[in-house]
């Protein structure tokens, strides 16, 4: 079956900066796909090329069977976009805005039902500019899905959310995914990628440096475990044996015991660090401070 998104050898250059340098990507129909990477790694540029906002320099790109560089209305109606920053301070109310956006589509969702689903019913009569950041983001998502898109792009959707708002947002996205919507998500929150995504791609220096199931990315599941307790710690391939041995040594309860595998964050940081340019090269600045890998 055809991929929802297929990218081969994508490149894009801004003046001196090679933002995207031969990027390959496949997104299947119905999956939630997260794109991770430091600021300046080329993920926003890539997503904007997929959304039809930017022209590429070279490479093959197909999104829902079309080249996004030549968007048609029909193609646009099958795609939903939730932009990274939308701070248009419209004087329209939430309900008016949803109703207006519904008029662009052949078979839109019902604005009132949609408000109910994203938790905006109580704000329906409020003007957009009066909304809080979290409510505002719900409107963005509602506008992104009102046309029943087959493919939804979410660019850093929960930046600035408190933990509870983020969790409610995740439930919303899981609901859409359950409905069969293909979702491409960029995020700085690895927890978010791990919760929502079926597959993740790590982008660094304009290329995909790793992709796969977040649970096994970068050999995460098979990596050595770290067993730590009050008096020491050890990295091992056989954590169960170590724990049994410790249990015998302490004759029962082991003080301060933890057994951990590398988190997605550990794997991510290691991947990003491996891609760091040699000293002096400052093409990209990682968003996350890079620590030495274990």
């Amino acid at each position, binding site marked *: 079956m055809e991929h929802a998104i297929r990218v081969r050898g994508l490149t894009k250059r801004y003046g001196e900066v090679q933002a995207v340098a031969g990027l390959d990507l496949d997104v299947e129909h119905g999956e939630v796909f997260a794109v991770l990477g430091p600021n300046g790694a080329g993920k926003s540029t890539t997503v904007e090329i997929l959304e*039809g*906002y930017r022209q590429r320099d070279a490479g093959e790109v197909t999104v829902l069977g079309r080249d996004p560089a030549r968007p048609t209305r029909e193609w646009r109606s099958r795609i939903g976009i939730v932009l990274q920053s939308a701070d*248009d301070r419209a004087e329209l109310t939430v309900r*008016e805005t949803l109703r207006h*956006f519904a008029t662009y589509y052949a078979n839109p969702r019902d604005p009132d039902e949609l408000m109910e689903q994203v938790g905006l019913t109580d704000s329906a009569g409020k003007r957009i500019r009066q909304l809080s950041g979290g409510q505002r983001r719900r409107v963005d998502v509602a506008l992104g899905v009102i046309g*029943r898109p087959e493919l939804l792009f979410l660019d850093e959707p929960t930046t600035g959310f408190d933990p509870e708002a983020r969790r409610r947002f995740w*439930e919303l996205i899981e*609901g859409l995914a*359950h409905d069969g919507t293909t979702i491409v998500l960029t995020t700085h929150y690895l927890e978010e990628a791990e919760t929502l995504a079926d597959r993740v791609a790590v982008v660094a220096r304009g290329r995909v440096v790793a992709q796969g199931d977040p649970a096994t990315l970068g050999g995460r599941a098979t990596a050595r475990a770290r067993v730590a307790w009050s008096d020491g710690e050890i990295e091992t391939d056989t954590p169960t044996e170590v724990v049994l041995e410790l249990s015998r040594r302490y004759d029962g309860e082991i003080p301060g015991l933890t057994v951990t595998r590398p988190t997605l964050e550990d794997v991510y940081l290691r991947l990003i660090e491996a891609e760091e340019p040699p000293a002096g090269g400052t093409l990209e600045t990682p968003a996350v401070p890079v620590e030495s890998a274990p």
Partner: protein
Amino acid sequence: MTTASDPAASDPAASDPAAVPRAAASLPSPLRIALARAAVETKVLFRERDAVVFTFALPIVFLVLFAAIFSGSAEGTGVTVAQLYTAGLIGSGVMGTGFQNLGIGIAGDRDDGTLKRLVGLPMPRAAYFIGKIASVLVMTVLQVAVLLAIAVLFYDLELPSQVSTWLTFVWVFVLGVSAASVLGIAVSGLPRSGKSATAVISLPFVVLQFVSGVFIPITELPDWLVNAASVFPLKWMCQGFRSVFLGDAGAALELTGSYELGKVALVLGAWLVGGLVLCVTTFRWKGRHDG
């Protein structure tokens, strides 16, 4: 990491059996979308209440001021100051709403991401421009109505009685609004950001009002200024409106002794076409900081 507890509780598809067939059916017609844009743009324009009040008040304040300062007739032609300034202020109002307000508004739309969001929709791009121009048309029609009502009630302005004169008014007005709006759309790309738009766009507008016969009769300007003003649409718009409100008696006040309506149509038409070309070739849907 656990997944959130109950996705079904917030599942947008749960109560939505029609979710499966998706968009497939045919899209709404471009005309319908253009009308929806016009309705939304007009609604938003009137929601900014302070802006509406001042937009309507401006020409009225000028009319009251000028009538008080230059009371009486001009040069013994029987033309009143109210007639002269009504014509000029309608021209200035059209230019203010179409060129200045629209240009500043679109620069703001570009800056805050409104345009970027719109261009990602299945919207024919022309629908955005049609919606903007329609909202300017509605706004200026009401502005003119209010101004004329005040001029008639308080300054004894006599409205033209001939249908042909009103037809002249209609074509000068529609051509003027269209040209001014298209220029406003084109000029919106000039400021570097929405914040600087007011300063960048107001200067040419204020200068044009001084040299195009809005504030000062064009006969009192030096030749080189008249020549410069003649390049721009406002001078011709005002001239067209003077032909409507001053009538034949006022023609003697014109530099050439005639209202030159043919030239009015030609220059406004040329600006309309030129402005359209500028819009199509230079309009940006994204802010400068956004690549």
